[in-house]
């Protein structure tokens, strides 16, 4: 009898250890950093480690370390930079902060992941003092989104990410259509019908995303709504703005004015292809999408134009800040004051903003330089000659009327985004499900998941 139980136990152990083997195999794919570099002198005042998931960001930080050491010979720093793939990066950061050891001193966090870190036991260093010199001139909503739930600043923003409309002017010129007079979504729909007729249905006005909520963010910002309800509010996805946008997109798809974005959204290879092939004539996207033109679609030089996004009713604000990366100082950093000071300087000072605009191609957060002729409109900047308009002209126009809205990122945001990108948008746009019904389903699930 004993032996039988021993045998049964051993088999159980065998089975389980095989399970762990399978798990171990999965863990093995956790990649080593793709690049590690150290910048700064070995005898520096403080030595730090910084992780990012974008190589270009680390390159930029490295340049800012050299510049800082030149300007502050008495307080030099040395930073070791590691770049990890996106998912690995956030996994490792989450695990090391949860475990209480092994985290870097400074780190990039993508905005979609940020709410995971801003709760009650926030493991990030308070940046209020370090940000104080820039507080007045930096776009407030960008600082707000990288704050703790109680409002304390914990992240330094990279860009505004103002949503704008990108137009393939060549297509509209070819068919003799005027896109510049489009002010409202009704005008936009009408233009789509004209384009469909003129091109025999071969060119779509735009493509609707099933894997991204950008369109819905734009709609919400235009009506001043927010499905997260803000930091203290209740989640409500059954908003008029969301309904209007989805109903309108459903109509476009039914009428053959728009197509569904290949692979889910336009910020992917398939999306670049649709743009380059002239399959879609316009699309709304944040300003940082300009860098995609430089990196993936340089052939489109001189063909693309940028305007404000159409609105539902004239007078509404047209834009919203989308996407972004906040850089943080973690609670495992040994000399956090200096780290925080350098970080704020690197990303928000004139030197930093120049690099961000000229090299990375982003709309910078420090508004002090937006109307600076030399900073914003210099012809040597790639983007000022690439597009038919100088991007900061649009940005200043938006700023003038305070048109760049904000959707909060709260602890419910990852759940909302995930449900819409997997389920709701597919139901509504692919399967033509009734908008009210789909939103009710979404609301039910999200309320359940976040309780």
């Amino acid at each position, binding site marked *: 009898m004993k032996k*039988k139980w021993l*045998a*049964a136990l051993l*088999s*159980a*152990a065998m*089975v*389980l*250890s*095989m*399970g*762990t083997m*399978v*798990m171990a195999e*999965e863990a093995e*794919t956790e990649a080593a950093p793709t690049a590690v570099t150290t910048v700064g002198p070995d005898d520096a005042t403080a030595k730090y480690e910084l992780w990012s998931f974008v190589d270009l960001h680390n390159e930029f930080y490295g340049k800012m370390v050299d510049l800082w050491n030149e300007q502050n010979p008495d307080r030099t720093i040395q930073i070791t930079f590691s770049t990890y793939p996106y*998912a690995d990066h*956030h*996994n490792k950061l*989450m695990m090391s*902060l*949860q475990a*209480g050891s092994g985290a870097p001193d400074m780190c990039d966090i993508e905005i979609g*992941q940020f709410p*995971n*870190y801003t*709760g*009650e*036991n*926030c*493991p990030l260093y308070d940046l209020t003092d370090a940000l104080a010199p820039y507080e007045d001139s930096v776009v407030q909503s960008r600082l707000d989104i990288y704050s703790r739930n109680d409002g304390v600043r914990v992240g330094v923003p990279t860009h505004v990410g103002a949503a704008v409309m990108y137009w393939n002017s060549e297509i509209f010129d070819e068919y003799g259509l005027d896109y510049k007079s489009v002010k409202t979504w009704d005008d936009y729909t009408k233009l789509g019908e004209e384009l469909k007729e003129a091109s025999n249905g071969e060119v779509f006005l735009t493509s609707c995303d*099933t*894997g991204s909520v950008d369109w819905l963010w734009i709609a919400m910002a235009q009506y001043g709504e927010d499905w997260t309800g803000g930091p203290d509010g209740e989640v409500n996805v059954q908003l008029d703005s969301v309904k209007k946008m989805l109903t309108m997109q459903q109509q476009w798809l039914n009428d053959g004015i728009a197509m569904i974005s*290949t*692979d889910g959204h336009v910020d992917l290879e*398939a999306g670049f*292809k649709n743009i380059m092939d002239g399959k879609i004539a316009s699309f709304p996207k944040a300003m940082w999408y300009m860098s995609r033109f430089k990196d993936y679609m340089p052939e489109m030089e001189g063909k693309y134009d940028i305007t404000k996004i159409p609105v539902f009713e004239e007078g509404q604000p047209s834009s919203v800040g989308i996407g972004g990366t906040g850089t943080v100082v973690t609670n495992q950093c040994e000399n956090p004051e200096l780290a925080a000071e350098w970080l704020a300087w690197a990303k928000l000072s004139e030197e930093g903003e120049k690099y961000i605009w000229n090299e990375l191609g982003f709309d910078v957060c420090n508004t002090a330089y937006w109307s600076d002729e030399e900073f914003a409109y210099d012809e040597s900047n790639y983007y000022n000659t690439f597009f038919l308009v100088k991007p900061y002209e649009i940005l200043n126009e938006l700023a003038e009327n305070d048109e760049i809205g904000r959707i909060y990122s709260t*602890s419910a945001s*990852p*759940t909302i985004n*995930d449900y819409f*990108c*997997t*389920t709701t948008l*597919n*139901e509504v746009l*692919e399967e033509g499900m009734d908008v009210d019904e789909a939103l009710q389903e979404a609301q039910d*699930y999200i309320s*359940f*998941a976040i*309780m």
Partner: protein
Amino acid sequence: MNKAKKLLYSQKIAPFVFCLPFVISLLVFWLYPLVTGILMSFQTVDFGVTQWVGVSHYAKLAKDPFFKTAVLNSIEYMALTLLLLVPIPMLLAVLIESRITKARGLWKVIMYIPALTSVVISGMLFRLMFSEGAGGQMNQLMQWLGQAPIPWLKAKGTGWVALLLLCMWRWTGVNMLYFVSGLNGIDGTLYESADIDGANAKQKLWYITLPLLKPTTVYVITISVFAGLSMFLESFMLWNGNSSPKNIGLTIVGYLYKRGIETNELGYACAVGVVLMVIALIINFIQLFVTGTIGFKKKED
């Protein structure tokens, strides 16, 4: 001889010393995480601050529609891989080991190579092959056949064709090698005596090969059950992340990852993990009892 040396050379202790590295690694890397995992499933964990919440995670799991989808997907995937990855590799192994096959070594190598590639890379390749754009290989194939391009990865039926093809491409060779080694363990004289008795090829396969392959088959089924239930990376790579349209590619481990890492609910994710373990144990025990690997049938002893 002093006492310490005596102890070292003692025949009773030596086996335990040899077992020690394994036992220690089992305790540190298996038992400790297992126990903390189970404990954490009754807690909320937030950056070092834990709080006991009783069984509320499990109560919530019972009502969670995403979790239900994930469990059904995982079990369905496991069942389909069992249907595909046991009979086909077995037949291939029998074919390769038969006398009519030439260049056996070459075939084995060719079949085994996919297992050496990383899932990450093969998943990406399959994603590109099954891309919904007209440029993907599969859609080009459809065009040659005069069909319209299909958004393969958007619907469950076609998406799972890609998923199962990826799985078969990777694992057929491995399972086949298990069966080949099982076949080599069968005594050749059995076939000779069957020949003398006038058995045909079909009878030899049915009455000699299959019964004597049973230990190998049980082993392959056991690991396939586990690999199937804990599948995550294939779907993660195929759908370029954890979010597939209407969650057609969501598995239990995928859901664990989603709640644990993506939305920072480690306690809830641990509950998902515990449920996965229980399901896997139940299925494996049933299977081991049914196949007689463990059990109480040796009454005559």
